[in-house]
């Protein structure tokens, strides 16, 4: 979830009243906010809604809070005049990054602080709403350095050199992808295309290589910048408009004047930004049913207004109008939630649903519980280990050939790169951490393991297994086989032990466990070379059985 960092004094300025830090916690509930930290004037606020980019800046948060506190109009109107400038979209961009829109902001006065806020908002939009720049990339420029119209086109990767931000020498687009940190980070978005996207003005001044980097000449905003040109590029127009609306309305909180840009595609013209409120229809009966509240018509209108909607009853529906920077209204439920928040969640009486159902534990889980109790009765300590492990533990240390195993493509560490197919290595690993602890050590675990099964829907099946292990000076086959016998005979299972050779066990002291002719596990004394691999010094014996196959 996005975390917004700001100064409390700034929030007070924007909201138009003083706010005690003790009240803050309560007030930010309206924007689904939770205070992460307060450090003097500096506040970090988590915004839980990942679908409301309008709340990812202090400007947007302040606007909503101002309304909740009764200091602002219900549905804020924005005046958008034409700037008279245009953005021309070349057909060549269609394949690589088809959409672009823009806006102009006049008369901004940005302090270092508000400049930082703008950058913060840009980053959050890029990351979450813009799917890490794939769907939305923002370029912000000094309007006064540009010669309009701006042309959005493509460029030969080696065809044109300019100085990108944070560098002081000219580079070709190809060099930027190779050497510039942003080029390395986002280069994969355009790398495969013969030509890269290019934003350039009528004097051939490069604005940027979207979605990678701006040029230093036009794309550097400072506290001296008075007028701003914003362009956004991406895949889908609706996502671009939301992002643009969020940006320009945030800047208007800093007293900027929003002006529109003509965006000329081959066949159509758009005027952006479009801040006309949008409309949505909700059914009051449905709303009452979901909320469990018997709201009157007046209640609805009042609560909608508090939440920033204009509402009007029309026959059997409520037509609501909402600001054009909101992205989260997909379904009437989204409005209904805002009504609940405006009503106050804590003002709703909790009722435990009177639904008569019979509870039950899943049979295999229940069976596993019975077995866990049985094994603890035999003096074994239950342990809990991770199912993520590595091939070295599962195979190499156990002296086994590598077999088909469930493997993670993007592990955070090679230590946790596969999901185990048996438990014994985990138990041995546990023993390695306890070499100084009093012996004998008797441990067990019941857990799911994963087996590859091409026929299954997920090409894998869970196999629930039990493994018991004994480590002691006198640990051996005799005791561990007694335990195995105690477990299986108490489960009413008739089994057979067939001697076999298994690299993890001492030859002549290992057996397969069979029920009729089905192999359900193995038992044996751990081979000393396996003990050496795990750096264990104590004789150890164990068994492992697949409960899934035992389960009646």
């Amino acid at each position: 979830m996005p975390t917004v960092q700001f100064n409390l004094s700034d929030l007070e300025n924007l909201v138009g009243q003083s706010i005690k830090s003790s009240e803050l916690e309560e007030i930010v509930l309206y924007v689904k906010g939770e205070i992460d930290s307060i450090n003097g004037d500096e506040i970090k606020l988590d915004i839980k809604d990942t679908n409301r980019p309008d709340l990812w800046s202090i400007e947007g948060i302040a606007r909503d809070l101002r309304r909740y506190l009764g200091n602002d109009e219900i549905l804020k109107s924005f005046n958008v005049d034409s700037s008279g400038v245009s953005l021309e979209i070349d057909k060549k961009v269609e394949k690589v990054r088809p959409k672009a829109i823009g806006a102009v902001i006049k008369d901004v006065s940005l302090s270092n602080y508000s400049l930082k806020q703008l950058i913060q908002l840009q980053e959050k939009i890029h990351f979450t709403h813009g799917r890490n720049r794939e769907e939305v990339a923002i370029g912000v420029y000094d309007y006064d350095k540009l010669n309009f119209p701006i042309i959005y086109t493509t460029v030969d990767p080696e065809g044109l050199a300019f100085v990108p931000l944070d560098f002081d020498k000219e580079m070709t687009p190809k060099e930027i992808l190779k050497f510039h940190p942003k080029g390395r980070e986002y280069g994969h978005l355009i790398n495969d295309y013969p030509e890269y996207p290019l934003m350039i003005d009528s004097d051939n001044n490069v604005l940027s290589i979207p979605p990678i980097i701006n040029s230093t000449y036009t794309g550097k905003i400072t506290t001296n910048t008075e007028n701003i040109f914003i362009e956004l590029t991406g895949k889908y127009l609706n996502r671009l408009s939301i992002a643009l609306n969020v940006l320009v309305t945030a800047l208007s909180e800093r007293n900027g004047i929003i002006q529109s840009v003509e965006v000329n595609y081959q066949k159509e013209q758009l005027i952006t930004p479009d801040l006309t409120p949008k409309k949505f229809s909700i059914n009051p009966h449905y709303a009452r049913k979901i909320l469990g509240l018997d709201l009157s018509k007046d209640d609805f209108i009042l609560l909608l207004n508090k939440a920033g909607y204009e509402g009007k009853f029309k026959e059997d529906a409520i037509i609501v109008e909402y600001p054009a920077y909101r992205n989260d209204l997909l379904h009437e439920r989204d409005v209904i939630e805002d009504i609940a928040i405006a009503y106050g969640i804590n003002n709703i009486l909790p009722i435990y649903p009177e639904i008569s159902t019979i509870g039950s534990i899943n049979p295999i889980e229940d069976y596993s519980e019975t077995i866990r109790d049985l094994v603890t009765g035999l003096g074994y300590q239950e342990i809990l280990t991770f199912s993520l492990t590595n091939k070295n533990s599962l195979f190499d240390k156990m002296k086994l050939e590598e077999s088909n195993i469930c493997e993670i493509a993007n592990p955070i560490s090679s230590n946790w790169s596969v999901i185990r197919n048996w438990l014994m290595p985990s138990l041995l690993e546990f023993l390695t951490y306890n070499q100084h602890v009093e012996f004998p050590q008797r441990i067990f675990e019941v857990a799911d393991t994963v087996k590859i099964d091409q026929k299954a829907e997920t090409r894998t099946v869970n196999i629930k297994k039990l493994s018991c292990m004994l480590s002691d000076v006198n640990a051996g086959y005799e005791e561990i086989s007694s335990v195995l016998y105690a477990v299986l005979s108490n489960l009413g299972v008739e089994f057979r032990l067939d001697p076999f050779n298994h690299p993890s066990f001492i030859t002549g002291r290992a057996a397969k466990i069979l029920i009729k002719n089905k192999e359900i596990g193995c038992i044996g004394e751990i081979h000393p070379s396996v003990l050496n691999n795990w750096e264990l010094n104590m004789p150890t014996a164990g068994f492992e059985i697949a409960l899934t196959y035992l389960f009646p």
Partner: protein
Amino acid sequence: MLILSEEGKKYLKDGLPEVNLYSLLDKDPIEIDYAKDKIKNFSIGLIWGKKNGWITIKGSKILKLKQKEGYTLPLALAQISKGEKVEQQNLDLLIKRKLVIKEKKANYRKIGGSITSLTPELIQTRQWKEFNLKPYNVKAVGSRIFPGKRQPYTRFINNVKRKLVELGFKEMTGTLIETEFWNFDALFQPQNHPARDWTSTYKLKNPEFGHLPNKRLVDNVKNSHENGISGSRGWGYQWDPMKAARLMPRAHGTCLSARTLASNKEGTGKYFAVARCYRPDVLDSTHLIEFNQIEGIVVDESLNLSHLLGILEIFAKEIAGAEKIRFFPDYYPFTEPSVQLSAKHPEFGWMEFGGSGIFREELTKPLGINIPVIAWGIGIDRLAMFKLGVDDIRNLFSKDLKWLRESKVAL
């Protein structure tokens, strides 16, 4: 008290070997090898046969020397077995041959008229009456033993499960590996959502793709994402079935709820799951890359927001022992409205306890469910850490045998 040894008992049954050997000999000598085969304990028979002067060895053969007369040893053996008296001479011989054992009287240590240990015999013969049992230092505790015990965290989870069953919830289970379809798409999580990208979610290298469910269900989900259903405008992008077929270790238990809804058309129900889940997070004292989640659903025509609060409230009281609760608006991608609950425990103070919401219709409709579904989850790890006195979340999966042995079983 005289009793027969194991060997004595055997001879009583089979006969003494010297007698058996003598009986085998006819007038003619016999081969030693032949006798060896025929007679059990041949060498003992040979020794005593020779000692008694009945037989001798010549070359490889055994010869009879004289008639065997008045040999009362077999009789004595039989008499002793019945507890009858026998001649001293025979008795000495039987004891010497270890066929009869003189069992020692009461097996005890006598210290000035008092004894330390009772024996079965002292009790049986009532001889204990003749002694005082020496008092012990009863303040001293015997040597330390370690009972077999349950792992504290699994035991804690079990208690929670029991509570849920008492509240009428039915357990759901499923595979650790899941398709993205069930983990995300069926939950209306758009395919281009950052939570689904490489850094936030594990993907599998082997096996890479699973199978999608039936076409109707897949088309419903696709349509819900692309165009929206049930009055929703949808996400407005092109849905990719190949992405949905990708396999991953499940990131939450909500996929089990989706599967339950898709396969259960009977309406009303309450379900829960304890799911092992995986996320590529940092691993530190507050984050695990593999953890347990407890969550579930309540399905009924009558449900509304106040029930959602009611469910969270009863969980907080029954499971966390909360004395005060507070609700906060929240955001979960699958639910709308969404509420989080903080609970105040008398000892541990305020903590985020759980979350709940009503599943979005864009999620339930494609699965064939047309009534409200409340989804809930409990933040079980934090509560477990408090209750078990663990301050590093990694220790819920403790590697420390000593700690496990010393952990208390009463929660």
